[in-house]
């Protein structure tokens, strides 16, 4: 469904991705494992159109996604939760969730439907909907960022190191939410990055490993984690 073909990206003259190819399929959870600086975040940013490609292409259902501006992604059904959450601090949690719906100018009914959908999946967000985005803990912020990505991510959702810095209890909570998400939205493609694979063994269908900007080994067997941390 979403395919990166030999994507090369340079940031400030430094090659960050070298001919990265990967495929996301409906209903498949792909986990991208790599150390800090290996190129995980850049892979996601490339898909979201936030960094220019030096070469290669990104296709969404056969159409050239890389030729469209970054802001077109949300409307095409791609949701993205950046690693450091990056909520709008002056907005309430609900306003943060509604931001992509507002950007896409969805009808009030559709906005409400999607919001209810997200609250159904992440009931803890409904309880703190009025709280400012700046007043959330790291774990709560990650949940809000996930909810925000789900507001528009009808086809694929990209999560950048969602477990980074989460307390064990919260990490477990988050993993449960992901499992529930997969049950509820069967056709959804997931791309999750992690620096340590073990937490995601239970939900990963496919594990890729990225190092120094290149995807090394492709391993379709679930749970077969690549070593390294």
């Amino acid at each position, binding site marked *: 469904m979403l395919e990166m073909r030999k994507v090369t990206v340079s940031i400030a003259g430094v090659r960050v991705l070298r001919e990265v190819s990967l495929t996301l399929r409906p209903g498949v959870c792909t986990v991208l494992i790599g150390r800090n600086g290996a190129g995980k975040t850049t892979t996601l940013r490339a898909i979201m159109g*936030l960094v220019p490609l030096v070469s290669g292409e990104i296709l969404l259902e056969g159409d050239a996604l890389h030729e469209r501006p970054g802001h077109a992604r949300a409307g095409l059904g791609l949701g993205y939760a950046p690693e450091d959450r990056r909520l*709008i601090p002056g907005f309430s949690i609900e306003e943060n969730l509604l*931001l992509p719906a507002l950007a896409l100018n969805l009808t009030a009914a559709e906005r409400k439907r999607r919001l209810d959908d997200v609250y159904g999946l992440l009931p803890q967000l409904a309880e703190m909907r009025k709280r400012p985005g700046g007043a959330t803990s790291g774990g709560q912020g990650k949940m809000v960022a996930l909810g925000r990505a789900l507001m528009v991510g009808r086809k694929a959702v990209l999560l950048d190191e969602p477990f980074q810095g989460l307390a064990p209890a919260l990490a477990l909570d988050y993993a449960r939410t992901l499992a529930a998400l997969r049950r509820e939205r069967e056709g959804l493609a997931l791309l999750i990055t992690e620096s340590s694979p073990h937490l995601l063994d239970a939900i990963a269908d496919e594990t890729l490993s990225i190092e120094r900007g290149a995807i090394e080994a492709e391993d379709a067997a679930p749970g077969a984690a690549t070593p390294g941390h």
Partner: protein
Amino acid sequence: MLFAIVPLIVDGLANAALIFFVAVGLTLVFSVLRILNVAHGSFYSIGAYVAASIGLWIISSGLNPWLSFPALLIAAALVAALMGPLIERTLVHWTYGKGEAVQILVTFGLFLILEDLQRIVFGVRSIYADTPMALLGVSEIGGIIYLNYQLLLIGLAVLTLIGLRLFIRHTRQGKLISAVVEDREVSEAMGINTRRIFMMAFTLGVFLAALGGALATPTSGVAPGLGAETMVLAFAVAAIAGLGQVEGAAVAAVIVGVARVLAIYYVPALDAVAPYLVMLVVLLIWPYGLFGTTQSRRI
């Protein structure tokens, strides 16, 4: 003694109102685009010239002089619609994300171009078009005579402040602008067309500056050099408030406007430097301005 100061305050507030329009535009453009537009003052003087020209034309062609009032607004809207998107797309657009030196050089170049263009188009003589002020007349409160036009200016500035606040907090476009101010990249990923938001914010900034200029024409007329003078004043206000602070710009404009009028009245020699003395004192105590905070920039 106490009553003697009231007209001065009104005078200061009317002065502050005009500075506020320019300064709030400057600060809005800075918070969205992250560039300090040195040419911002030119939009004030262009707004003034266009308003004065339309005003004189209305009188000379025998139209109803009350049309001078909507003409002020139309002048500002014209300047914004014609110049905002054009300049943002062709010139300012290239400086995004570049160093401050590049931004200042480019916008300073723009300032020089606009100054010369004004001389070519409007000439070098001063233009006076004070019909609106004459039409409104004066009113007497407690034995003191006030220019009604000054009271109108103060009212308009307050309305603009409230309107901007409502626009930013409660409308779709306003919320999208706030999101872009906080985090451009995430906004883009959430589906916000940040290029459009930049263009819109820049045009709104141009409109506010041009409106300030248009509203100033009835009180002071227009002459070459107005743009530079206004720019420095607006910069002083924005610096006192802390760049990026909309409400702060209003408070700072009042401080500067009142300081200026008090200086004119009590220490005329300090007239021109009063705003900068205030700025100096404020920045010595609060280096980021009264309402500013330290900016941390993400790579």
